């Protein structure tokens, strides 16, 4: 059974067709890459999946349940986690707090316990902290724990964002251009983390990026979009050979 099923989704904004009949599936522990020219609708697909945009038509099922009627925070609670194309961290908060926020919907205590703190709230916070520390350890963020994220280098911010998504204990992870703007070393680190998440944790991943080296290397399958329409879907090797892909996206130099 597939984790995510997207069928014939259409989304347009005042004259711009952002998504025009996109369908695909993501299998368990699959790493699906979505590529395409700028403005092809990749981010828009993510926004539909996480409930930020509501498509005009189509069907999206996540773990067998319909997504389209749900609001973003409900979808998050179902286990959909994502990172954003432009880092969308909570800038004034520390790394720790950003990661703790990832665990928001796992907490069960309310505002009154929070005011009192001792007891429920404190226990829950301590337990969450332990979970978060593991992620910090995994993503090698130890040195940055207490820093407000706005002061961090870009590459580290991207990592924190990944950490926040992981803290949500996702059932599906969406990564939007995780290595854009990164130097070689950081790209390699990120690639490693992505593979680990998929291989060790078995979390299926949808990945958008323009770094073809990365995409072709990591992806199990690749979906190519152009002007919101699917152009090709197949293994990296198949896609790379597809003349339509070369023309629309890779250009002569790929």
């Amino acid at each position, binding site marked *: 059974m597939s984790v995510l099923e997207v069928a014939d989704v259409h989304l347009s904004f005042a004259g711009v067709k952002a998504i025009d009949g996109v369908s695909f599936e993501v299998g368990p522990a699959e790493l699906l890459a979505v590529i395409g020219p700028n403005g092809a609708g990749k981010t828009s697909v993510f926004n539909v999946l996480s409930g930020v945009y509501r498509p005009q038509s189509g069907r999206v099922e996540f773990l067998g349940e319909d997504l389209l009627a749900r609001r973003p925070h409900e979808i998050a609670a179902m286990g959909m986690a994502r990172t954003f194309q432009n880092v969308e961290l909570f800038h004034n908060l520390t790394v720790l707090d950003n990661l*703790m*926020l990832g665990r928001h919907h796992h907490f069960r205590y309310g505002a009154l316990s929070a005011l009192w703190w001792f007891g429920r*709230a404190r226990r829950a916070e*301590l337990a969450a902290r332990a*979970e978060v520390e593991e992620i910090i350890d995994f993503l090698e963020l130890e040195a940055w724990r207490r820093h407000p994220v706005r002061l961090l280098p870009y590459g580290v911010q991207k990592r924190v964002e990944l950490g926040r998504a992981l803290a*949500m204990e996702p059932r599906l992870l969406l990564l939007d251009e995780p290595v854009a703007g990164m130097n070689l070393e950081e790209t390699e680190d990120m690639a490693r983390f992505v593979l680990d998440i998929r291989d060790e944790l078995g979390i299926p991943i949808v990945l958008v990026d323009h770094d073809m080296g990365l995409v072709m290397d990591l992806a199990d399958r690749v979906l190519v979009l152009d002007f919101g329409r699917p152009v090709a879907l197949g293994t990296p090797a198949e896609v790379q050979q597809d003349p339509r892909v070369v023309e629309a996206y890779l250009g002569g130099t790929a």
Partner: protein
Amino acid sequence: MSGTRAGGPSAAPAIPTGRSRRVRGRPLLHTSYAQDMALLDTRAKRVSAAALVLLALALSAVLTDPALEVLAAAYVLAIGAIGLNIVTGYAGQVSLGHAFFVAIGAYTAAALSGPPGGDTLGYGITEIWVWLPAAGLAAAAAGVLVAPLATRLRGLYLAIVTLGLVFLGEHVFKEWQELTGGVGVGREAAVPTLLGVRLDQDGAFGTREQQLYLLMLVLLVVFAVAARNLARSRVGRAFAAIRDRDIAAAVIGVPLTRYKVLAFGVSSFYAGCAGALLFTLSGYVEPGSFNLLLSVQFIAMVLIGGVATVSGAIAGALFLSLLQPLTRALPALVPVISGDTTQTPNVFQVETVLYGLLIVLFLIFEPRGLFGLWIRVRNYWKSWPFSY
């Protein structure tokens, strides 16, 4: 991320959660998350917090009654400012409507504790532990009703709409003379009785001012600690998330509407309590008091103290409350300024101008507020003698 990892946290290396002794001489070395997450996480902080509270307690014996009254008012205003800081500083929903919620608290308490059968509404319940929570809850209810607007509006739109609340409130309070006594007339404020002891009369625990001072101090500490707790909890983090980036907050699972409503609710609760207490000091409430100026003063306290810090809100409230007496004292030191009202400039003009100017100058030179000033000083000493 423990989702697929066997056993969750227990499988991870043992995590010490209890308190444990700290290695001597390394105040920032924490050996458990509990220590690390404690409110006052260093010995220095604990000591200075305790010292501050003790000092504040001691002041009640040292200072004159009028000075105590000024400070007591400052403490109450601080409670209100902390409340505003919750909705505006932490959750980022700028509200100019704080005065409205303060008014609701003040009148709820006044009506509950007022004498029955008088010109104005009264139920004769003077016990503070009844009217104080009631005032908070009434204001919180109003806050919760208003909050849905906040989910539609942003920034200054919200600010001016909440300002509209103040004007609408003024109208209602003016018209509802049974409750408020009417403009220019007013009514008695809530009477603070604690277990049968009237705190607004000289009594067993000291003079009226001493008793009220201690009451306000204790309440301020309680409210401040609760606010700090809230801020470091999931709720506080969710507020901050909404403030910094609301779409992202929703996408990681924070229900926006619920938390905006909660922020307004909690903030208004604080405002309501502050309102109930504020006027017990003078014993008298007049509906004209709940105007734009009051709201603005709260905003100024938050900004001057430092946004999104509890201690900042307290510092801001103290600063503004003490600024008035200060500006009254300052011109006296400059003998060339006339005390004669017929002349310009006279001391009264100078003191009013000073009040405005000092706020302006302070914000120009320390835009991050008193808290920023503190951070600067601290950073300086931390990096001393290597200023860079």
